[in-house]
């Protein structure tokens, strides 16, 4: 009689989703495909529409237009309790009138699955909280509540598990632990996870694929390494890690690369790593990919050099030092240096030249708001 568990995750597809609320549009137009069994992160600042996207998939909101498919089936009109989806809510939303075990067994009982308490206990074992089964949720710490919420969702073996910033309320150390645990559980149960977060480290750390959302649309999507290595827009380059951006007209172009001139320095980027090859473009590089020297390095076609600039700020962060270098006509650029030798590597006020490999440059599709490097 009892319905069987769904053994594995299903894929999720959003087609031309648009969501309007009275007074504003939360999602402009969203197309998204999450393959089965993947850990997918929707990353963006608050108000970018990522939580709305999650609520649309859960069925707690109805899209203004567009369709949602789970495992190939159109669920756009399906009520939340009929969708093979479970959510770990940001607030956890554990029922205060039930103990932990009953909370976890709730979904099983609704679907009339055999031995709900036995299965709930197993799920609590998975998150290592079986010993707290009789407690009320209010008696647990934030991290424990979060794990109960996870068990309550996972025990149903949903085709798709939605995570709405579930780690947001935890302190840093606990968050890191939970990230590792969550990833391990995802690999173990093999479900499709859709994780919404504004924490870029969390997204890069856990997800197979990250989609960066901004103002109701997806700016860029891909593996964390690819996104970090080659952001395509100013927003992505700034939201996912830090970037130095340089803006100028394309002056020359060779077979493989294009160059701009900024403050008397020639900056090149490989054509394959640039979105635009003509006109005014922004070229960026990551602070940890660059180094600085007190003498001007010899110019070569494989290295970009900027300088001289003045070190105006040094911030010690433990594993590295962050140097803020003011270059006349360009504004401030950031360079990270690992603390391998003596720290700081150099003193405030020193004149330095910044250099980095042309291969580490990236050309963006749009321009930053200010004309200068940021």
């Amino acid at each position, binding site marked *: 009689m009892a319905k069987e568990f769904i053994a594995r995750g299903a894929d999720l597809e959003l087609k031309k989703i648009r969501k309007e609320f009275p007074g504003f549009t939360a999602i402009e137009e969203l197309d998204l495909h999450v393959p089965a069994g993947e850990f997918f992160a929707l990353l963006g600042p608050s108000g970018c529409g990522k939580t709305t996207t999650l609520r649309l998939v859960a*069925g707690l909101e109805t899209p203004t237009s567009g369709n949602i498919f789970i495992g190939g089936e159109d669920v756009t009109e399906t009520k939340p309790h009929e969708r093979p989806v479970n959510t770990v809510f940001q607030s956890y939303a554990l029922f205060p009138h039930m103990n932990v075990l009953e909370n976890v067994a709730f979904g099983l009982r609704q679907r009339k699955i055999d031995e709900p308490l036995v299965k709930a206990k197993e799920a609590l074992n998975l998150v290592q909280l079986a010993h707290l089964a009789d407690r009320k949720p209010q008696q647990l710490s934030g991290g424990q509540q979060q794990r109960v919420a996870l068990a309550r969702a996972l025990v149903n073996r949903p085709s798709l598990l939605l995570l709405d910033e579930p780690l947001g309320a935890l302190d840093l150390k606990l968050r890191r632990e939970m990230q590792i645990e969550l990833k391990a559980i995802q690999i173990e149960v093999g479900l499709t996870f859709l994780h919404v977060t504004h924490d870029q480290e969390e997204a890069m750390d856990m997800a197979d694929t990250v989609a960066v959302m901004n103002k109701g649309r997806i700016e860029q999507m891909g593996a964390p390494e690819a996104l970090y290595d080659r952001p395509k827009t100013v927003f992505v380059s700034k939201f996912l890690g830090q970037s130095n951006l340089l803006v100028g007209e394309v002056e020359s172009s060779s077979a493989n690369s294009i160059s701009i001139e900024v403050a008397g320095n020639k900056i090149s980027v490989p054509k394959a790593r640039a979105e635009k090859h003509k006109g005014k473009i922004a070229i960026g590089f990551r602070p940890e990919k660059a180094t600085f020297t007190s003498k001007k390095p010899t110019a070569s076609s494989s290295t970009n050099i900027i300088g001289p600039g003045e070190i105006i700020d040094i911030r010690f962060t433990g594993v590295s030092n962050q140097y803020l270098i003011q270059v006349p006509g360009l504004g401030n650029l950031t360079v990270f240096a690992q603390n391998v030798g003596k720290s700081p590597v150099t003193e405030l006020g020193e004149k330095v030249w910044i250099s980095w490999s042309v291969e580490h440059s990236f050309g963006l599709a749009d321009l930053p708001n200010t004309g200068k490097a940021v």
Partner: protein
Amino acid sequence: MAFAAFSSSKPKGFSKPTKSGKVAIALLAPGLAYLGVFFLTPLIALIMVSLQAPDPDGFIGDYVAAFEFNNYFVVVSDYFPQMMRSFGYALAATVLALVISYPLAYFIGVKARPYPLLQKLMLTLVIAPFFISFLLRTLAWKQIFSNESWIVTTLQQLGLLESDQYVVGTPFMVIFGLTYNFIPFMTLPLYTSLERLDTRYLEAGSDLYASPSKVFRKVTIPLSMPGIISGTLLTFIPIAGDYINASGDFLGSSSTAMIGNVIESNYLISNDYPAASALSVLLMGAILILVAGYVKKSGTEDLL
């Protein structure tokens, strides 16, 4: 202990319970005095009156102090039907009030949240009837359902009532009046607890495969239990002792007399003070037992 580091001797006020005990008694005194004067004194007086015996040399209505426990057996055997009727009517009216009030309170407290003005307006409307004396309002209902009213004649013409049947004086009319008069006492506590209901629990319920009706039964009702308990207590207790609605002057008749009517007529008409007092004590005891059992059974210790 931390204080010890700053003082040469041990702090005294904390370790000696006798001193703080005196303070506690001093603070409690006004409350105890209040209870003593306004609750205990009349209660003892009531119990003493309930045990009085008729004065053998006096007129009707003259009684002397005694321990006439037989009074209790007499009133129970005389007025058992009225007692049962009181609790029956009180139960029926409480259930009706709950069924009517819950959707109303849910609408005001949950659905109308985005519209604070509407919320306030509706709450005012719930309380508005209190601006008119409830005696007048009850009499108005008597008139609306009077024998010559168009409602009754229409019901008779439709064959729902026989030509010699009327509405006023029937149990229906009394329960109707009780429900009507006590609905705000049900709605307000329900509103208070539903207004605080976190709708994210409802979303979590539907996310966990519970249909809307299941969410209502498994999540909404348990979470609004404190309101249900206080609402039902605030209606059931006064209804069980009510003597206005069931009285022949208002909506009832002799066949709908409740325990309150019996107490009233014993006190004010037949001057049988011991019987009236005994009935009052019995009513109080019965309500205490019922309420204690109810609160215990609904397991509200965690919620209240």
